[in-house]
């Protein structure tokens, strides 16, 4: 039997790091990874960042990024050793037998040249086709990749096409020289979800149609499951598990792989409407001391595990009061809260440590939700110590892991809240809630004190955490835009009552009741005259009671 297209044996890759003020240190990036790839097959390399997947992908081209050395093992492409091949051999192979699709197409194209020139460049350089043949092939590729106007697409400049189209153009560039192997390095990571779908479908089709082999590098198991024949799971530069796509997805052997698979399956499970709710409110009414009317009136709702229930309403509608009832700060007047199958004690004092641990809260003002005299390490570490009895070293390691999950570095551990930005503060608060490993997190207006971009980052983080860890949120907000982004179910509250309750689609589509209509209309639109139009509309169609004062 002939040797497979690509054989990597016991690959070892090292780099030298230069920490400031210390001696240079050798770091092993990849340690003893072996793989084979047959012609026309797709191998998915998957792992978290730092797992060495990109480095392995690039090594298939005999290339190491700056400072990276391929120090051991062998890489054979079409039977030729690539690891110590002279420059001439590498030059003739790269861009011809093996091509590369980078993560950010926008950064990989030369903005000053037309797409067509760039797509056929390497094909012509290697004299694999004449210019006319190459152009014809490029146009065929454009067609197959579903690009608009394939005939004239190549005449555009990179800035004249969308990000998703650019990524496809890059795939066309990689496929144009009829390579044997294409290395896809996270080609869809920078794209939004719907564009990713299109690009993924195009890539899959192109790979099948042209019968090329591919190394598909990604951190997203769901993506790689769609496209790969075999999957290699990497962690810290070593192989965790290597097998067929089917085996990895349906029958993972290693614990790490099982976690990865489970993280995705959570996403699927959350769509199950029959599952037992983690939180149930039964006829909750509440009033503050000294008031003789109910601030909350007969509230009933459920939250399914792994989903988000958004509670929307203007200030004074009782949403934060509801949070106080749930946390036990305000015992309800009537009704009961069922949490995780058991009735929660209405007062904070009557709750067990476990119940407290499973129900965490994130506040609107991260500024005042953290003790200004405690370091980030103390703030996040305290729940670990308090609930799980973690001490010094273990605790520190867990805190660093949590910081990593909220996308902050280890260096934040000794900072004080005053030394953080608004978004970072809110992230630390999220980490503090996560540290308790809760079943439900109450998010009380967590983004309303942040500017829109930072708020978006926080929403994305919350969503990612939900997908990865299956956290359940009760998301209190007055911001319809945020609701659209995070909610699975929505409850609209007005003057202490739930006026509308149901799935996101249902609640956010017409016909609306008066109050929901007002809420929806209140999201400023980016056009002149919106304010006047909306106000006129409100006056015409809504009862005076629903129009806010001063409107």
């Amino acid at each position, binding site marked *: 039997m002939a040797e497979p297209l690509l054989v990597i044996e016991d690959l070892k890759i090292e780099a030298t790091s230069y920490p400031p003020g210390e001696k240079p240190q050798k770091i092993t990036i990849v340690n003893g990874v072996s793989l084979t790839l047959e012609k026309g097959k797709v191998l998915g390399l998957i792992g978290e960042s730092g797992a060495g997947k990109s480095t392995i992908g690039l090594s298939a081209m005999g290339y190491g990024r700056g400072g990276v050395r391929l120090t051991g093992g062998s890489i054979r492409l079409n039977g030729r050793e690539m690891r110590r091949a002279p420059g001439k051999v590498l030059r003739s192979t790269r861009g011809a037998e093996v091509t590369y699709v980078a993560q950010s197409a926008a950064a990989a194209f030369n903005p000053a040249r037309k797409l067509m020139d760039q797509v056929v460049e390497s094909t012509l350089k290697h004299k694999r086709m004449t210019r006319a043949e190459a152009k014809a092939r490029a146009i065929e590729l454009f067609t197959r990749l579903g690009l608009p106007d394939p005939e004239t697409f190549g005449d555009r400049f990179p800035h004249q096409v969308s990000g998703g189209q650019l990524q496809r153009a890059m795939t066309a560039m990689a496929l144009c020289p009829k390579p044997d192997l294409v290395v896809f390095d996270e080609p869809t990571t920078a794209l939004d979800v719907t564009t990713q779908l299109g690009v993924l479908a195009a890539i899959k089709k192109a790979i099948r149609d042209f019968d090329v082999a591919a190394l598909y590098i990604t951190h997203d198991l769901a993506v790689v499951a769609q496209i790969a024949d075999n999957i290699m799971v990497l962690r810290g530069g070593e192989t965790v598990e290597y097998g067929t796509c089917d085996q990895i997805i349906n029958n993972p052997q290693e614990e790490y792989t099982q976690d990865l698979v489970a993280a995705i399956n959570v996403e699927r499970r959350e769509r199950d409407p029959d599952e037992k709710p983690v939180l149930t409110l039964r006829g909750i009414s509440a009033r503050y001391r000294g008031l003789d009317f109910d601030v909350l009136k007969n509230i009933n709702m459920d939250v399914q595990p792994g989903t988000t229930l958004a509670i929307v309403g203007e200030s004074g509608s009782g949403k934060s009061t509801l949070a106080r009832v749930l946390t036990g700060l305000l015992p309800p007047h009537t009704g009961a809260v069922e949490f995780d199958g058991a009735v929660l004690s209405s007062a904070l004092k009557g709750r067990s440590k476990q119940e*407290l641990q499973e129900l965490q809260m994130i*506040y609107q003002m991260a500024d*005042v939700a*953290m*003790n200004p*005299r405690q370091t980030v390490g103390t703030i996040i570490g305290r*729940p670990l110590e*308090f*609930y799980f009895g973690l001490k010094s070293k273990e605790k520190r390691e867990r805190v660093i892991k949590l910081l990593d999950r909220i996308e902050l570095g280890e260096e934040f551990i000794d900072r004080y809240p005053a030394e953080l930005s608004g978004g970072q503060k809110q992230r630390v608060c999220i980490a503090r809630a996560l540290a*308790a490993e809760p079943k439900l997190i109450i998010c009380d207006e967590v983004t309303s004190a942040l500017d829109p971009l930072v708020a978006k980052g926080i929403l994305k983080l919350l969503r990612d955490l939900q997908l990865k860890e299956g956290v359940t949120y009760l998301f209190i907000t007055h911001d319809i835009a945020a609701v659209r982004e995070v909610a699975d179910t929505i409850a609209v509250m007005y003057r202490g009552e739930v006026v509308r309750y149901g799935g996101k689609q249902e609640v956010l589509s017409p016909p609306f009741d008066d109050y929901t209509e007002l809420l929806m209309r209140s999201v400023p639109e980016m056009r002149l005259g919106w304010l006047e139009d909306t106000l006129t509309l409100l006056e015409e169609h809504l009862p005076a009671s629903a129009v806010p004062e001063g409107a």
Partner: protein
Amino acid sequence: MIKRIPYPALFGLIVTISFFLAAVFAPWLAPYGMSQVVGDVWEPASAAHWLGTDNIGRDLLSRLIYGGQTTIFVAIAATMVAFVVGTALGLFAAVIGGWVDQALSRLVDLIMAIPSLIFALVVLSVMPVTVPVLVIVVGLLEATRMFRLSRAVAADLAVMDFVEAARLRGEGRSWVIFREILPNVISPLIAELGMRFIFVVLFVSTLSFLGLGIQPPHADWGGIVKENKDGIVYGIPAALLPAVAIAALAISVNLVADWILERTTSLKGGRNG
């Protein structure tokens, strides 16, 4: 932080430290014994007696040094009593709230409604005047001020979200008081501590001057003023010297306390700063 000490604070620090060192090393520094009669009545300053002698011929400098020791140590002890009792009760009241807070606060109001000097005179006139009794009486009276300050500052903090977060976590009362609130109230309290110390010095001196403080033959600054007050009529400055010492200590400790207050509250993340 320590690098740039403003001159007033530096001056205050040096004077304060000198006073404390003098108090600690009094037996070695004082040229004569505390109640040793070494010369004539009210001798003027000379090489043998730098500040002259007092109303019965004791060396005034030695008397001042020993007196400073007594005054400062009694004041420190009383201030500590005030600080510990006042702050602990203040934080406790703020965190618990409700009727406990009401009861404690009203009690403190009641005590503060009575002029503290008169209150102390009454109490000390029926109790044996010993140093521990003096320390406790003065300490408890001053504790009312510490109570009010710490309660006021902590009451603001007790309703903040991070305290609520700690409560929702299920933390006990002592964690909330000592780990969440105390670190945030400590800087105004430290500044207040400096102020209290001065008031206690004045208080103890006043009591001694009135004869209900430190009892002779032990010296303290108030007592020295009392012993020598008659000399003023004859133009003898002996009574003024302890007054100068009290003023110098008061001003210098104040300068240091101001600096500490400024430094700790101007830290990023300090209250209102």
